[in-house]
């Protein structure tokens, strides 16, 4: 009994000492060394895992392959038509903006980062990035993929690595605007790695399925106009002051290999 009490006391002392040293910064160099070592190793393994997951699609029958090819051709033709329309619209947009003396370019300053691992603890849905405060990344900086699709927000920036909290993490919060007639504002919140919802939408404003949600720009340093997703369903109860929308995120949270972290705009 006495030896157990001694063991408990000894181990508790060691743990509390380590926690104390961490908060006073004495372990900083040691922690950074292990972050780099483990980040390097997990990065290599994660890259291998990603390349296996993105292997070419396979088909069970020749007919399925032919059908998929036909589908691709149809989509390609449609995209050519859309591209032509887009170029016309783009030209018109530039002319209008010049007429109104409007600045066209967004001028984001970004840092590209690779994902080297993931922490899938039930409390947090976190990606580990291979860039940190030495590259200009800071806590609160938003991260995007593609053409402005919001992925999440940096919650911790160490010198060489950083932790990115995904939009569907249960602690994730973004001030957002719906691109509807009223330009409704609300709060986008994640749901335990599964869903994304927009809450506190005024009851009297019209929200339709398919409406696009963007960041409102009301919180620093989140710029306006980053695409969060589209409305998938609307939950509205009588006599409640607010309604809620379930969103389909624009970015695929399960297939992220590189992100751009916005550090200035």
């Amino acid at each position, binding site marked *: 009994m006495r030896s157990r009490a001694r063991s408990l006391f000894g*181990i508790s002392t060691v743990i509390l000492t380590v926690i104390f040293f961490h908060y006073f910064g004495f372990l900083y160099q040691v922690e950074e060394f292990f972050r780099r070592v*483990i980040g390097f190793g997990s990065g290599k393994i*994660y890259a291998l895992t990603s390349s296996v997951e993105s292997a070419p699609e396979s088909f069970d029958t020749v007919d399925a392959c032919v059908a998929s090819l036909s589908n691709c051709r149809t989509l390609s033709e449609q995209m050519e038509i859309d591209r032509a329309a887009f170029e016309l619209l783009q030209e018109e947009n530039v002319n209008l903006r010049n007429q109104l003396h409007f600045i066209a370019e967004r001028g984001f300053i970004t840092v590209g980062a690779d994902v080297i691992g993931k922490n899938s603890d039930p409390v947090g849905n976190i990606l580990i990035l291979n860039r940190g405060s030495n590259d200009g990344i800071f806590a609160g900086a938003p991260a995007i993929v593609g053409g402005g699709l919001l992925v999440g927000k940096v919650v911790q920036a160490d010198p060489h690595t950083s932790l990115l909290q995904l939009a569907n993490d249960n602690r994730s919060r973004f001030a957002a605007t719906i691109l509807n007639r009223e330009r409704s504002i609300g709060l986008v919140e994640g749901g*335990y790695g599964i869903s994304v919802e927009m809450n506190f939408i005024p009851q009297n404003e019209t929200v339709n399925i398919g409406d696009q949600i963007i960041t409102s720009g009301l919180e620093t340093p989140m710029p306006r106009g980053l695409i969060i997703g589209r409305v998938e369903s609307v939950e509205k109860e009588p006599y409640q002051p607010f309604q809620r929308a379930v969103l389909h995120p624009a970015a695929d949270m399960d297939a992220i290999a590189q992100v751009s972290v916005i550090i200035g705009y």
Partner: protein
Amino acid sequence: MKIFFRVMFLFFFVILFTCVWIGFFSVLPYPFSQINVAFLLLLSFLLWKESGIVVWMSFAFHFFLELFTASAFGIVLFSGTMTMLIVFWLYQFVITNRSWYATLFLSVLALVVYRILFFLLIFLEGVWSADAAGGVSLSSFFPFVFWEVGLTSLGVVAIFFVLNFFSRRMSTALIQR
């Protein structure tokens, strides 16, 4: 010198499996991403070696995991290390035999104790920081914890059978103190 090399080997082993957990297991499709690799290996090591060094291995494993966790420093470290200490005592003084059902019971108990300590500390962190957004709804975590306990325990039992097949060391018998 022999002890030094053994310690270095275990240290390297812990770092390697931390990399594997973060870079591979965490990105598996749900529910397989919920497998707790730390406890899978630590419990297997405990059954194989029956040594108290497993508690220090748990300390190292959870310290490295702490470096990649967004929650307050010390939560994962404390809950992981204390759980392994409790499990080691239970194995030595309560369970005291080596069988597949004892292994299953030990594994389930270890993960339940770990998650109880973990969520208790998360709750205290939320109270301390007065962060309303940091509060957690325990009922929403039950599916995650259920899969973690279930899959990890099955993994430990599977490793037990594999080790039992290849070595007499794991034969059903009273453990040596």
